């Protein structure tokens, strides 16, 4: 009796598992969405998150300032590959990375804030 209850439980678990599998495709969509959202860099507490972002060539990366203080997004190379205007709270900056390489950047107002985009 106990065992059949156990089996029933197991089947239920399997069914639930299949249910999850049924949305398995959704699962992969979710991970694609995650990838999409990973192309966002959020500025919180005077730091870029994620600090290092790896993306395929052709990706557009968008930075959003969620601090109460303005920040900028400026590449460290010379001449500068990208340089945002000053971003006030909730303002965004986007840049499309077409060429593979490592792009280091920082906030020119608070230069201790640094980040990196690796384009593959």
């Amino acid at each position, binding site marked *: 009796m106990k065992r059949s209850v156990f089996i029933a439980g197991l089947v239920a678990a399997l069914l639930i598992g299949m249910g999850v599998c049924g949305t398995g495709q959704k699962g992969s969509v979710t991970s694609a969405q995650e990838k999409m959202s990973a192309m966002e860099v959020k500025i919180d*507490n*005077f*730091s870029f998150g994620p600090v290092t972002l790896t993306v395929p060539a052709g990706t557009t990366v968008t930075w959003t300032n969620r*601090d*109460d*203080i*303005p920040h*900028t997004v400026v590449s*460290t190379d010379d001449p500068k590959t990208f340089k945002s*205007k*000053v971003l*006030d*709270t909730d303002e965004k900056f986007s840049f499309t990375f077409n060429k593979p390489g490592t792009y*280091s*950047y*920082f906030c*020119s*107002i*608070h*230069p*201790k804030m*640094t980040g990196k985009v690796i384009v593959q």
Partner: protein
Amino acid sequence: MSDKKNDELLHDHNRDGIDRRGFLKCMAWAGTGAFCVIKGGVLQSYSLSRLSELNASVSKGELSFVQISDSHMGFNKAANPDVVGTLKAAVDKINGLSIPPEFMLHTGDISHLSKPEEFDTVDQILKGAKPKDVFYVPGEHDVLNDDGMQFLERYGKGSKGAGWYSFEKKGVHFIGLVNVMNLKSGGLGTLGHDQLEWLEDDVKHLKPSTPLVVFAHIPLWSLYPEWGWGTEDSAQALAYLKKFGSVTVLNGHIHQTMQKVEGNVTFHTACSTAFPQPEPGKADSPGPMKVPAEQLRNVLGITDVNYVQGQHALAVVDSSLA
């Protein structure tokens, strides 16, 4: 003060103008509306209850001026939705000082976003102050988007480079420095080669007995580099000032009072008139600190500076807007 009181600290064992207990006590009070005075080379700390007594003793000086900082006009977030009101309160405070200051220093972050209307508003409010002359240096918020061109047009008349300059008042030599331009990734404030060369030349012909006041936005000492609170090449600048018997360094940027005495150099940072920032390392970031509305004016303030000829150092007095 000839009569020693319990809250006045006059043990100067190393003859360096500071005693450790006094310094720590002073540091503990800093930012809470208390103040410190460096007088005759000796750091003295006072409780707020003795403000009037102190005013009477130090306001006999020959030169009195006031420092304001970080007005951040345009800031409207929770930490202070009314930066106009608090700047006006600072002006009221200045106008209420027992000896009217002869001029004002503004150590930067006049505006929050370098917008013309933000500068205009500050100019308008400061017109209400009794002292008519204001000497400015830029903060990083004043040079956004245009490499400081607008700042130079508005406030940089007669200045060199990105806006540095010097002037004399009653035998005191004032030097305004700019350390918010061309900041490098991962770095701190920067003066740069051209400005350092100018500084060396500017002080070369001065007598060592000339009192110096150096003012700049970002602290010219390594206050908390983890948050960018320091200047990369400040040591070089200070090396040029070694021969002088009295150097007072006035900074802003960190929105709280801090002081340090090193040899003949007294470092001091002023409160903001807009919003407080956390003590070094005491928060996730140096962003605006929200305090209960009724406490806000306790953590904003102005700095009153008095010079008495013949005295070793200038008296620096912080008072809150409360």
